[in-house]
């Protein structure tokens, strides 16, 4: 177990190095079985949450009726609630939770900054500008399964990520994480100004819808939005799967990592691209849901330590369970009125994280 200072203090290379060395030593001792057991534990939690969540909702449904093939789907209210309203929502929640949490882990390692999250580098800002444009100007362009707002969101997110990447790698220089961080923070501020300008010139209903979009929402009403985000997320997860060992090396420092034979530039590139893809896909599916990407990784580290081979999969699984759980609360607590998801994640997750932090301390 790591001490909480590892995750809360700004990265101090000496202590971090020491802790990583400590964990590397422990990692060597730890059997593969123990790693698998930890991941298995989080996996069971995620699966149980995803199985339980579609059974509960604002309406009582009969599962027997929902799965009764003799009733035509077009007339089966229980089946429609289960398969149109709930199941896609749970899957989207799992996908977005896993995407944001693992992107958070990757960005925190890449930027070697515990305060980094999926939205630090301007991706959410770009996505929000896209969404705001689509809402304010009533865009009606769809591409395949992507409806106008997710399409605009995705374009904005990808545009911002590309811009930040270009800024950090100008003139063939190797990627500079400090330039990356500063460029991202500056772009975020710039995008906020654009968002405010767009809101200022929009009408009230548009401003309200845009505000609501910023609070996050998983009520997607069918599988199409999940299908639209899936390819992107799948590529992101495959790339992220290659990263854990390299991220362990990288968190010691890029020079130290390079001296151990890590192709730092390549790892940084993969880390940036994969985390940006996961973030863009998540935001286009559910809006910029805060908190998951920054706190789930820390929470998981408090429980399992800092080895990315455990932290990454465990964060993805715990992020999925956490977001699906929060969405369950969002749609049932005050039904028929729903609480926006972004409010629930912070209001449930915040106190829980603080409790864990204090208890561990």
């Amino acid at each position, binding site marked *: 177990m790591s001490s909480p200072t590892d995750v809360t203090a700004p990265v101090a290379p000496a202590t971090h190095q020491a802790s990583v060395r400590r964990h590397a030593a422990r990692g060597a001792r730890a059997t593969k079985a123990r790693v698998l057991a930890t991941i298995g534990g989080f996996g069971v939690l995620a699966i149980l949450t995803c199985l339980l969540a579609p059974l509960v*909702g*604002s*309406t009582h449904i009969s599962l027997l009726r929902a799965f009764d093939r003799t009733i035509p*789907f*077009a*007339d*089966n*209210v229980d089946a*429609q*609630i289960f398969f*149109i*309203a*709930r199941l896609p929502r749970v899957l989207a929640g799992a996908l977005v939770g896993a995407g944001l949490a693992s992107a958070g882990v990757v960005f925190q390692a890449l930027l070697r900054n515990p305060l980094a999250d999926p939205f630090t580098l301007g991706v959410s800002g770009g996505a929000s500008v896209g969404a705001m444009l*689509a*809402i304010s100007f*009533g*865009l*009606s362009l*769809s591409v395949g399964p992507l*409806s*106008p*707002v997710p399409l605009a969101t995705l374009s904005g997110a990808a545009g911002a990520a590309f811009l930040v990447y270009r800024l950090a790698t100008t003139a063939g220089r190797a990627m500079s994480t400090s330039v990356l961080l500063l460029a991202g923070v500056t772009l975020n501020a710039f995008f906020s100004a654009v968002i405010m300008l767009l809101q*200022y010139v929009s*009408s*009230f*209903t548009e401003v309200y*819808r845009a505000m*609501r*979009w910023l609070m996050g*929402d998983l*009520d*997607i*009403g*069918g599988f199409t*939005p999940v299908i639209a985000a899936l390819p992107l997320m799948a590529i992101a997860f495959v790339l992220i799967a290659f990263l854990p060992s390299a991220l362990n090396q990288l968190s010691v420092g890029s020079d130290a990592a390079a001296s151990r034979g890590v192709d730092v530039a390549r790892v940084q590139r993969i880390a940036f691209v994969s985390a940006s893809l996961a973030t863009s896909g998540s935001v286009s599916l559910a809006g910029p849901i805060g908190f998951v990407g920054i706190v789930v990784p820390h929470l998981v580290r408090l429980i399992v330590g800092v080895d990315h081979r455990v932290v990454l999969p465990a964060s993805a699984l715990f992020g999925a369970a956490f977001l699906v759980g929060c969405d369950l609360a969002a*749609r049932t607590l005050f*039904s*028929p*009125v*729903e609480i926006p998801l972004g409010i629930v994640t912070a209001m449930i997750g915040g106190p829980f994280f603080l409790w864990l932090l204090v208890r561990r301390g």
Partner: protein
Amino acid sequence: MAARASRITVVIAALCVASLHGSSSQGTAPPARAPQRIVSLVPALTEMLFAIGAGPQVVGVSSYDAFPPQVKTLPRVGALLDPDTERILALRPDLVITYGSQSNAEAQFARAGIRTYSYRHGGIATILESLRELAALTGRRADGDRIAGDLQARFDAVRARVRGRPRPRTVLVFEHDSGTLRSMFVSGGIGFLHDMLEIAGGNDVFADVKRESVQPSVETLISRAPDVIVEIRANPPPNVDAERRAWLTLTTVPAVKNGRVHFLAGEYLVVPGPRVAQGVEAFARALHPDAFR
């Protein structure tokens, strides 16, 4: 708010009255003169002013005003969030119509000795009440009573037409993302749209949620099973067919099953002003087509 007329206004009004009628020997405060220069920051109330014949006195309107056509040539002075106090003062108004949340602007006008009439959206009753109050304030009580009476008569006519017919369970939708059912906002159990729907002979499926707007989930929409869906927009959506297709996934909803998803567009539907009767009639035609054959 009329009672909030500041002392300066009273003094000025007193001077005006004194100059018109010579010296007044009575001790009571003389009645304030009907305002001659009105600035309206609320489009619905601008419409009311024109309806009761006080249009010529309107010298400035909000940036959202579009009706009646005469407002297009009037100076724009900002709106709910950004009233341009300087421009408003420069128009030398003697009455400014504000929205209830604009307390800062109201205080500023009070300091400048300008009367304000503060309004907040409510139900149909609020519309009729505001009409009458504005009429009294502008010295057009008879016109106010006539217009309010006309509206009431048109409501009664609609009620009479739909009386005895089964009232369809209806959802009134005013927003959702283009091409999907996401980010949907519908009318809840209070407000003028809810009242319009009830007069038009529909039962609001979200009547139990005592809010002006509700964001229902897809699950809630399926389980509330409305017989009729009425989508209203200030401007027609660019692609009505795409909006209609978005509903087709919810095949168990009776409105979808029976092809009773209606799209109504027009600013008159969403402005709680004197055109509200036209909106009620449009709703009634959508809900009870047989009653209007």
